[in-house]
């Protein structure tokens, strides 16, 4: 609620007020605060100091910092040309530095691998070797940036469409696809790579991200958590609750929205009439930014800075990536029922791989030899998937009872014995029939 006697400018200052006691972060705090702001002279002085801090750090007003870029941040255009600084979409003084060359080449490699994984998995579904695969074809730049912007001890909370990001964090490709092959569990160990299990209920994982960040903060750790969701998911209640909790508790969480324009068949216009999804951030007292989600250079620039700010104690940040789901929701969906081929073709021209490739080649950072090596890497991962997902994993029906609780209850032991008895009788019958 904005106090009656308080204009927007004053309001933005009040939400900057440093918290007393609870948090142990540095002075740079851009987020809401769970202590109510008071209009005392002392607070006004503190607010002025914060405003000055923002100006020093970003060269822009606090209000300009809180609101997303007028259009979007784009550093490399769809033709692969680096845009002039003043055309990248930033406020003057708030420009993003170009990511380093090594980072970009490594990211390109992951991009190519990600595309190969998406297409290999779609093929495996068609061959009946996977149950379902929600492909991120066309969104690979977002997938790669979400994984690469984080450091070793940081956490990633992915959705079901983020298998490429999960792999880019170091999870074994076959383990990452466990859910989609129709197995009963999540496959990988979340604690081994600090990656949450790919989440099917929408935005529920954002709150888990908030909790992980909160626990880390209470222990004084500098962990950053990146939580992913899509455009449709921003309509869910947990989206609101997660952003608000992260802001109120001033937690280092980056909410990364891949706006791919569709929630299965429902277009963005049916989800919101907000100017952009990034604009939603300011309502929570958090800064929002929007970026071209098919421009990996801009994505890394924006997310790298978001991670750095969050680690320094900025509180949560929201980044909206403007991208497109090139394929149907899953193999079970028919996208021709709700969108025009011309729209898809338009986005084909904005493909994230070709533009980064052109850019890197133009910079002399990618020669034929490197390309061949990267293609070979992608092919090796595809082969790993074909082989790993082609194998029939032996299933033990008794495993169904083993992990419902830490120890099975007496009731579960009874049911497990019942199943064991059924199976042993079946086996006996089979043996007798064989004889």
């Amino acid at each position: 609620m904005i106090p009656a006697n308080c204009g927007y400018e004053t309001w933005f200052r009040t939400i900057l007020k440093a918290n007393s006691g609870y948090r142990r972060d540095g002075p740079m705090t851009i987020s809401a605060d769970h202590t109510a702001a008071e209009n005392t002279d002392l607070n006004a002085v503190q607010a002025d100091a914060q405003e000055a801090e923002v100006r020093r750090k970003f060269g822009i007003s606090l209000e300009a910092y809180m609101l997303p870029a007028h259009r979007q941040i784009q550093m490399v255009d769809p033709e692969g040309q680096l845009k002039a600084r003043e055309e990248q979409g930033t406020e003057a003084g708030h420009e993003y530095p170009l990511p380093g060359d090594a980072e970009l080449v490594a990211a390109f490699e992951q991009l190519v691998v990600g595309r190969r994984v998406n297409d290999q998995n779609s093929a495996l579904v068609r061959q009946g070797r996977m149950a379902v695969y929600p492909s991120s074809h066309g969104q690979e730049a977002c997938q790669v940036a979400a994984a690469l912007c984080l450091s070793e001890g940081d956490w990633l909370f992915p959705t079901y469409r983020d298998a490429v990001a999960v792999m880019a964090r170091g999870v074994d490709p076959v383990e990452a696809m466990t859910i989609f092959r129709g197995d009963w569990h999540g496959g990988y160990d979340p604690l081994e790579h600090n990656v949450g299990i790919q989440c099917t209920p929408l935005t529920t994982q954002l709150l888990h991200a908030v909790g992980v960040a909160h626990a880390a903060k209470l222990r004084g750790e500098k962990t950053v958590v990146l939580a992913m969701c899509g455009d449709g998911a921003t309509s869910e209640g947990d989206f609101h609750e997660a952003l608000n909790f992260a802001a109120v508790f001033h937690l280092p969480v980056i909410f990364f929205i891949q706006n791919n324009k569709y929630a299965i068949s429902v277009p963005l216009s049916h989800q919101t009439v907000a100017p952009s999804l990034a604009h939603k951030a300011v309502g929570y007292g958090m800064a929002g930014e929007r970026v071209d989600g098919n421009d990996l250079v801009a994505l890394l620039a924006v997310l790298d800075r978001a991670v750095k700010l969050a680690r320094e104690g900025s509180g949560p940040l929201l980044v909206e990536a403007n991208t497109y789901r090139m394929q149907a929701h899953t193999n079970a969906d028919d996208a021709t029922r709700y969108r025009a081929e011309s729209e898809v073709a338009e986005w084909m021209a904005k493909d994230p791989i070709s533009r980064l490739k052109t850019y890197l080649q133009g910079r002399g950072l990618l020669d034929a030899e490197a390309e061949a090596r990267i293609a070979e890497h992608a092919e090796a991962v595809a082969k790993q998937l074909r082989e790993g997902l082609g194998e029939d994993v032996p299933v033990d029906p008794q495993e169904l009872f083993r992990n419902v609780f830490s120890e099975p209850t007496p009731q579960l032991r009874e049911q497990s014995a019942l199943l064991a008895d059924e199976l042993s009788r079946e086996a006996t019958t089979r043996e007798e029939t064989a004889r």
Partner: protein
Amino acid sequence: MSPTVTTSSEANGNVSAATARAAAKAAAVAEATGPQPVTMAKALNTALADAMQADSTVLVFGEDVGQLGGVFRITDGLMATFGEQRCFDTPLAESGIVGMAVGMAMNGMRPVIEMQFDAFAYPAFQQIISHVAKMHNRTRGRLKLPLVIRVPYAGGIGGVEHHCDSSESYYAHTPGLKVFTPATVSDAYRMLREAIDSDDPVVFMEAKKLYWSKDQVDLEALRREHDGLSDGGSGTHAQRTEGRAVVARTGTDATLITYGPSVPTAMAAAAAAAEEGRSLEVVDVRSIVPLDDETITASVRKTGRAVVIAEAPGFASISSEIVARIQERCFHYLAAPVRRVTGFDIPYPAPKLEHYYLPSVDRILDAVDDLQWED
């Protein structure tokens, strides 16, 4: 170990500000040694404080649990004692509270969260059903979620709509959740400590009308008993409450099986039946999940007759589950069909009408009378 249930007169009335103040005052009085009059609210509060003292990863949060000490004062004084980082208020959003607790439990904490009222917990249903209950299973045991969701529940307090639901069946129906509900002051302490110690998520249902019930309890002895359990449980394993019902009153003619808010009513019915020359055994289920089939079965096989009593609507409920299990296990021992006394299958009634709805001593005795006593 069969506890005496002494329900104070406030237990059946409204939880007024005056009784809340009185309880807070009682809580402030330094604990003397030996059995003292203790309310269930105080026992729960002490259990929280002891758990927080014993383990710095135990955190308490929810709506109004900080400065105010909870609308029922169960978290009274915890923020002052343990600081804002260990006990704090959250924004008013139940899904947020549970979802954040999931993340904290994933990352080394043992959150104990409060849902304030039964019906206020429903916004958190997706988090509880899809994540709290399933995380251990879908990660093949790699992620444990040692969190406790405290739910003040049930009626008999003159509460208005949405404040008196008996929501235990929803949770008990969901694989992966443990569901506890203490009926005595001592069990309130024991079971909350056990719930916090558990590596599995526990939905901890607290009958609101029992908050101000009093019993002569030695909290220091309960504390020692708990410490004995957590030191590997040597010698005192019989004191564990998880998965163990308790025979609250022994009898020979019929068994009353009940839990939570209906336990005092069942005890009163058994006392009244004794005056009429009928000996009723009372089983307090207390651990709904896991359920103690053994104790229930042994009692019904002994008496040959049973009435299951619960405040929740009877259709598709804990009471129907218990009846079904008795039929499966005790059929040849039964002298009469198992009867039930439950809430009606209606939305929880307004304060002026709730006494028509709640299982009463008379309704229980009528059900007992129907158990085919003639040869």
